[in-house]
């Protein structure tokens, strides 16, 4: 890192090595997306052709056209929408509970030695437990309705947020803490002004993992026991060998997952613009 020039991370200008190389490297905006999109279209065409030529039965692998038809009618009839809202509600509510308790509990563990001594070993032990394994138990306790799935989602999504919050709050640079101490700052002021903002990159790394796990928890929870939701609908389609509908629901879940992930990353980018180290990679 150069110390004498403003380190804004932007190079002075593009370095043109030679005429041909620079022409070859110059990229049209969105060209990468165009390449991956056309690869996807090619895959769909090959898939469609292979299934038709080889006469693969629909209940083994339906052609993309059948999936799109199923998707279209599922959306048009409102069936997918209705179940989507159940799953989305469970996922988001569970995720928010996980974020609230993960950050809150993490703060208590990081700030108070007594809490750390009593609670932390148990949290570590619980973390190694596959949370999905207790899903049947939660269905028994909280019923077949939405509540049980919210609890499962919260439980599955809690740990990455909790652990990252604790690590983030503890990883504060001693120099910044000394600065606050030299000013006679209270523990609360140090927490609010230094420790918490300092932990935000870690917390967001946890949230990024947690949002993916939240959808997973929601669907698996519905598999274990539910009355509605996209996971419930997948099971139902499964029993009917309606593989095209299963694929159609997977498409919806994929779009849902990518959208949620992008929302978290968008907020992260807005809040953590100052953090040069945070990774944009998926």
């Amino acid at each position, binding site marked *: 890192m150069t110390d004498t020039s403003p380190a804004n991370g932007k190079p002075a200008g593009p370095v043109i090595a030679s005429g041909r190389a620079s022409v070859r490297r110059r990229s049209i905006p969105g060209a990468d997306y165009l390449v991956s999109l056309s690869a996807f279209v090619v895959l769909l065409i090959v898939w469609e052709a292979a299934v038709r030529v080889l006469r693969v039965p629909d209940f083994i692998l339906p052609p993309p056209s059948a999936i799109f038809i199923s998707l279209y009618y599922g959306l048009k009839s409102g069936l997918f929408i209705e179940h989507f809202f159940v799953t989305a509600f469970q996922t988001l509510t569970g995720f928010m509970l996980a974020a609230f308790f993960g950050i809150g509990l993490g703060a208590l563990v990081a700030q108070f030695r007594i809490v750390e001594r009593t609670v932390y070993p148990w949290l570590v032990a619980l973390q190694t437990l596959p949370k999905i394994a207790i899903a049947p138990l939660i269905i028994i306790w909280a019923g077949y309705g939405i509540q049980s799935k919210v609890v499962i989602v919260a439980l599955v999504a809690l740990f990455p947020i909790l652990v990252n919050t604790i690590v983030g709050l503890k990883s504060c640079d001693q120099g910044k803490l000394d600065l606050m101490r*030299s000013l*006679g700052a209270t523990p609360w002021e140090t927490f609010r002004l230094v420790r918490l903002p300092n932990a935000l990159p870690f917390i967001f790394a946890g949230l990024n993992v947690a949002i993916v796990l939240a959808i997973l928890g929601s669907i698996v929870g519905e598999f274990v026991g539910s009355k509605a939701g996209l996971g419930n609908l997948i099971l139902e389609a499964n029993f009917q060998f309606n593989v095209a509908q299963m694929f159609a629901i997977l498409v919806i879940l994929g779009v849902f997952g990518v959208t949620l992930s992008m929302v978290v990353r968008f907020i992260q980018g807005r809040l953590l613009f100052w*953090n040069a180290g945070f990774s944009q990679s998926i």
Partner: protein
Amino acid sequence: MGSLSTVLKLSPTNSRSQASQDSSAVSLQNVSKTYSTASGEQVNALQKINLDIRSQQFVSVIGASGCGKTTLLRIIGGLEPEYDGDLLLNGNKRSGPTKDIGIVFQDANLLPWRTVLDNVLLPAHVLKLQIKQATARAYELLDLVGLKGFEAKYPFELSGGMRQRVAIARALVHDPSVLLMDEPFGALDALTREHMNLELLKIWQASKKTVFMITHSISEAAFMSDRVIVMSPRPGRIIEDVVIGLPRPRGLDLLSDAAFGNYTRRLRHLLDNGEDAPTIGSNAASGRVHYD
């Protein structure tokens, strides 16, 4: 030491430092500090340090790594609450942090999520000062350290030297009478460092603070200071208190001056040979030096 009189004369406008004419801004009496390491070994970091720093003096400390310089600064700054002996600040005994001190650390320690202005205002927030007045003062200080127009920038947009200047402005925003600096320019390259030395002298002359600065650089110490405290390695003791009788204001041409060369040679000699060094050039007339 007639040339020092202008510097040592207490300014009547600064009421805080005027408890009595001969009171020191910082006074350490028989201050010792012992650490115990992880293996249970007792390390004598500081041994019976006696030091008086008069108001508005610029005092530097030099010494080998591990001689307890930083421990000394941390004790004065209230960051090391456990030590033996007495510490008086403007005549009052104290322990723990006080708002009459500003500290510049080796790293700028800026909060990357705050703008330059908000970083400078951090002490004002913590010390519950009037934000409106503090903001006006922060603008003045940023102007003083040459960062006018950078108020809304973020630390990642600044160079290392600029960040350290923000740290200096931050240390001064609550108008402390004492400024502690722990190798403030240690991480900077030689040219930036020289420039920062001149800037700091300018700031010191404008703000009239008592400055206690740790440095590794002999020439930096001699160039900036009224007195240079030379410390010995473990256990940390004061070997010599050298009064730098060079006229002020000082410019870079001083670096090639023969008198300046005498001082740096003497300081170098003291660092190499400890207390056996023969006295040349100056003597410790104004500083109260104690040997143990």
